[in-house]
């Protein structure tokens, strides 16, 4: 076997995570290092963009470029980063609150533009950083500091949300299955276009018992074991409806014919326009003739 170009530890920064011991995000970070090492891009060719939240601290824990931006604004900033430097591998990391509450309006546009980005949401069904308030994915009836009598709202379904907007790659993972989660993150990064992985990453401090990794181990089911065909978008939507009831892991949908990315279309447009471009003296002559 050839020596690997980069090992998982090459992506690990000196900064020690301050997450609560037992937090699911530790496993996600570990899986991310491994996925990056399998992909083999050097850290300086990778950028992590996040919003604000416990999960959004991820950029600081990697040796890649990172931008821990503003709450809910990771998607627009990541799109800007990728368009400014399309050679960068850009990964977005954040929470369910960051992505589907304050940042929810950006999702549709990030998906429809189809920029080659990977969006990892650490879905813990609460606002972890601000101490356990209700989040858009909190189950109905959840009692939190902001819903002391239980939430009256139905949760958002992140999987259906992404599928409905037309994302080309939609998957779900849990750190209860580390090899499976790393492989899914890797596959999402390799997908040429916008890809999304909903990672059920438990909050041990404010999360419910049934959302912890021990419970995940008992209830997770791979989509492969259900015989799901991940090229079938309608079947993916049907299975995604079980979000919150079943814990399906794997690829719900992967477009077998990925459409061109936005950045490749921009490149084409630039090439076309540059053919029409006039030489400087022609521009000057045209100006003088007026």
């Amino acid at each position, binding site marked *: *076997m050839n*020596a*690997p*170009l980069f*090992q*998982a*530890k090459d992506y690990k920064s000196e900064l*020690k*995570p*301050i*997450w*609560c*011991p*037992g*937090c*699911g995000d*530790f*496993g996600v970070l*570990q899986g991310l290092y*491994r996925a990056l*090492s*399998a*992909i*083999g*891009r*050097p850290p300086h*060719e990778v950028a992590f963009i996040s919003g*604000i939240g*416990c999960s959004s*601290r991820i950029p600081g824990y990697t040796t890649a470029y990172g931008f821990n931006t503003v709450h809910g604004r990771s998607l627009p900033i990541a799109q800007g980063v990728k368009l400014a430097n399309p*050679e960068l591998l850009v990964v977005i990391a954040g929470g369910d609150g960051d992505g589907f509450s304050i940042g929810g309006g950006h999702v549709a546009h990030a998906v429809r533009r189809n920029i080659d980005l990977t969006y990892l949401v650490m879905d813990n069904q609460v606002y*972890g*950083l*601000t*101490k*356990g308030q209700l989040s858009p994915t909190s189950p109905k009836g959840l009692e939190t500091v902001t819903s002391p009598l239980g939430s009256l709202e139905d949760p958002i379904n992140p999987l259906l949300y992404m599928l409905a907007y037309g994302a080309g790659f939609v998957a779900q993972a849990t*750190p*209860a299955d*580390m*090899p499976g989660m790393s*492989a899914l993150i*890797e596959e999402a990064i390799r997908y040429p276009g916008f890809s999304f992985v909903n990672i059920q990453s*438990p909050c*041990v*401090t*404010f999360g419910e018992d049934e959302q*912890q*990794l*021990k419970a995940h181990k008992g209830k997770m089911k791979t989509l492969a074991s259900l015989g799901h065909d991940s090229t079938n978008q309608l079947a993916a939507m049907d299975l995604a409806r079980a979000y919150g009831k079943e814990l399906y892991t794997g690829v719900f949908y992967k477009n077998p014919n990925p459409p061109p990315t936005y950045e490749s279309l921009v490149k084409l447009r630039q090439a076309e326009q540059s053919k029409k471009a006039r030489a400087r003296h022609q521009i000057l002559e045209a100006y003088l003739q007026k």
Partner: protein
Amino acid sequence: MTRQQQTPSIDFTILTLKDALDLAVLIEEEARDRYEELSAQLVLHRTPGAAAFFAKMVRIEELHRKQLIEQRHKAFGDAPVGVRREMIFDVEAPGYDEVRMNMTTRQALETALKSEEKAHAFFVSVLHNVQNPEVRKLFEELRDEEVEHQELVKAELAKLPPGDPLERFDVGDGPAPQ
């Protein structure tokens, strides 16, 4: 763009003694690094008893790693390493979800015991596929050592006063809001 193949998994049916020894080194390294991380987490979250025990585990795993490295060098010198850390997942390392702030020393010892049992189960399971007699011998030794380690942890557990006075309790002491 530089791209590698997906990390290959290990085929135990054709594993050589050199690769087996290197794998054993990596298993100890993974456990050492995890205990180091967990200990640092617990220091940060003011759980000194469990943190100190995990720091002790760091030294023990490092000792095992060094012994295996010596064995490997005696047999194969500086021959290149053919396996990589990414091929294994938490063989002897406790899972990240095994720890909590305010966990007791007893709970820390129980976590270590569980990890030694997990490592034992790993060797038992892979031995079903190992065919090379030298690798079999090595893995049988390592499997049996895991039992010895379990006994050591159990002896430490027995020294603790019964019913740890401070059982884990739930406190919401997450990171500071931004």
